[in-house]
């Protein structure tokens, strides 16, 4: 399938499961345009503050994905010629052996250290660029099998914080839980030996982000530790990953629920709740102005950031000057006062958008600090 047509969709494996969870289509995130990156400067923007934009040869691919064993297997088994470059990049990671365990391909320690301690490097540092990024096309080499973080991350959401709440605060959590549980289930199904299992579950494979050994800095692998983690599958890593994929591929959502724990069921319920919000146009009865950061202001327009620094909005001064009318009274009364005193009418669609982006919030909103 063409990447464009599934841009906002989930990878096929996840899509089948989530269709059962939600029972309906997920609205398209049309503002996050991977092929014409909305985080990159266009035209006159290239003369503006570059700290506001991503590097076009990196985009949001300054993140090394954690690929759980069954996803690695799906990539290795994908014989589509168009997937060759991505397949090779995964084979290279396996060959290097850095953070490669029966659970899958983890974060290399050097990446973890830099990622956790860098500032304003996301979308800008070429050293953080994903190994599966295809330089010639600017696309993802493992798109059809991308993991939970990459599958649910959008720089901008059509419905602002409502979209963020669905994708990042709900569906992402659900898919991470599923990935973790299924990867561990596969270890049991493939009879990894006890010593390797003990070491994996004790967390010996996890990278450090706050300390790092000289060996890890140089991306050298301690072959003894590596061998203990792989146990009876040592030397057959690729075969192991493909077997994991064969186990997971035929699972329906009900199969997944029978394998995974209560955390998955809990996140599934919360994801359904967030989906209801995402597909609802309801406006709260009473509203007040929310918290926002002023990015810049001109005579006509104010740029403010609310739920995400990646997704600010430009607001006409007339609308900004009307925000104080929303003081906890019924929204209809606020709108009537704005019309009477300022001579402007705000359409319900605009009020809905102001709610989506946190410019207006219900009076009982806790006023939690902005991210």
């Amino acid at each position, binding site marked *: 399938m063409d990447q464009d047509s599934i841009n906002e969709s989930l990878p096929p494996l996840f899509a089948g499961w989530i269709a059962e969870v939600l029972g309906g289509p997920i609205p398209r995130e049309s503002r996050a345009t991977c092929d014409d990156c909305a*985080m990159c400067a266009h035209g006159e923007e290239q003369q503006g503050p570059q700290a506001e934009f991503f590097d076009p040869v990196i985009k949001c691919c300054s993140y090394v994905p954690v690929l759980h064993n069954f996803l690695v297997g799906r990539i290795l088994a994908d014989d589509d010629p168009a997937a060759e470059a991505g397949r090779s990049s995964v084979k290279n990671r396996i060959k290097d052996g850095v953070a490669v365990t029966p659970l899958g391909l983890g974060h290399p320690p050097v990446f973890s250290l830099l990622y956790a301690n860098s500032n304003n490097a996301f979308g800008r540092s070429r050293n953080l660029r994903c190994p599966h990024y295809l330089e010639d096309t600017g696309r993802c080499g493992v798109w059809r099998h991308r993991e939970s973080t990459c599958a649910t991350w959008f720089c901008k959401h059509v419905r602002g914080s409502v979209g963020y709440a669905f994708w990042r605060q709900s569906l992402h959590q659900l898919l*991470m839980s599923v990935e973790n549980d299924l990867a561990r289930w596969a270890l049991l199904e493939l009879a990894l030996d006890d010593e390797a299992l003990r070491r994996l579950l004790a967390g010996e494979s996890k990278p450090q982000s706050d*300390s790092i050994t000289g060996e890890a800095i140089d991306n050298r692998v301690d072959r003894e530790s590596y061998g203990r983690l792989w146990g009876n599958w040592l030397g057959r890593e690729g075969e192991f990953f493909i077997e994991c994929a064969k186990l997971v591929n035929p699972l329906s959502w009900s199969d997944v629920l029978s394998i995974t724990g209560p955390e998955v069921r809990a996140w599934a319920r919360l994801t359904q709740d967030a989906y209801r919000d995402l597909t609802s146009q309801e406006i709260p009865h009473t509203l007040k102005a929310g918290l926002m950061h002023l990015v810049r202001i001109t005579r006509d327009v104010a740029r403010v950031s609310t739920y995400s620094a990646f997704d600010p909005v430009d607001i006409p001064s007339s609308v900004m000057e009307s925000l104080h009318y929303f003081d906890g009274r019924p929204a209809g009364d606020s709108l009537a006062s704005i019309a009477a005193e300022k001579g402007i009418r705000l359409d319900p669609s605009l009020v809905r958008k102001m709610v989506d982006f946190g410019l207006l919030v219900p009076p009982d909103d806790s006023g939690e600090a902005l991210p």
Partner: protein
Amino acid sequence: MPISEYILLTLLAAGGVALPDGSPTAAAPLGADAIVQPNGGASSSASIGQQTPKKETSRLKRLSKTRHGRKGKTAQHRIKPDAPKKDGGKRSGNL
């Protein structure tokens, strides 16, 4: 109500039209497109607090730190490989 008056009132209610007698045009309501999502983000030099633009949430990072605190781990323990920092803490998929 004369049909012409009905049409006029309907048009006014729908968003405004110049009145035949030349009186001021009723303003059209501002719709959702009045608010624009520009390309790019808010630069770190702008007053956007301490947000670190990562794919993961700082909330989860804070939670993961709290988890260590509850366990009372020492610095020595923290260098062991269950120290979740980003990417959703221990559930992040750190393998």
